[in-house]
């Protein structure tokens, strides 16, 4: 069976996640060899995922970690006092 572009697009996410079966995978790969448009779509989608996983893309507020651990330390202190009272 020969795949058309639309069919490839429907499976692009699963293809990236490596969760298509072997037969479909082979068909997609055969299609990608000669279809520049689908190959570019696959590349661009993959690159977006690479960029997403890059820690610089989604940054945490400055001082977030310090404030979190400070708050946690206070919580530990107060729970200690509570257990002493019991």
């Amino acid at each position, binding site marked *: 069976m020969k795949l058309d572009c639309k069919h490839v697009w429907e499976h692009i996410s699963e293809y990236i*996640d490596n969760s298509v079966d072997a037969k479909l995978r082979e068909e997609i790969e055969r299609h990608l060899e000669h279809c520049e448009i689908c190959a570019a779509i696959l590349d661009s989608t993959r690159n977006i995922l690479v960029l997403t996983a*890059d820690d610089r893309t989604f940054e945490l507020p400055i001082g977030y970690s310090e404030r979190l651990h400070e708050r946690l330390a206070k919580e530990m202190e107060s729970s200690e006092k509570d257990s002493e009272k019991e």
Partner: protein
Amino acid sequence: MQASAANEIGLIARILAGEKELFHELIRPYERMVYLTLFSIVKNETEAEDGAQEAVISAYRHLSSFRGEAKFSTWLTTIAINEGRKRLRKAKGAAEESIDEQIEGQEGEYTPAPLTDWREIPLEALERKELREALRVAVAELPDIYRQVFTLRDLEELNIEETAEALGITTGAVKVRLHRARILLQKRLVPFLKTMAPARRSFFGRAR
């Protein structure tokens, strides 16, 4: 690097046995994840940070109810999601709507945009600040149900099953939403990527 599961279970046991201070160490690899989960729901930095603190405190207080059937990261993510949803409900007041009640939309919207020049975009383009900014905006503008799945799966790198468990939806729903989220982002970023692509070399230019 996240602690190995065995290591983590050991840590949890020691914390529960009284070495409370070790909770700092337990939570450290997941701080980023907790914040990003909250942010994907409340979409506001201050709210996300407050919520992240609440979620971590809640995990600390309820650590004894962690039974180890799920991974610690999934358990913690579930707490973070609940905290985020609670804040969202509070913000929306009486006009509360369930996150899962949103309409899934038409299939036609989820067709990727062609970009034949992509292969010519130098890898350095991915380093550009503007592209990262564009991606942040695009993710923020995704419909809620897609953004949450995308955040857990592609940003926090949970697997399909863990994502489904944390959000309380089926793995099938995770796959559909993830696919749509990725396609929507691809579509949104294509015009931006095109401006970065160098002009196509002419046939003669290439022959030199």
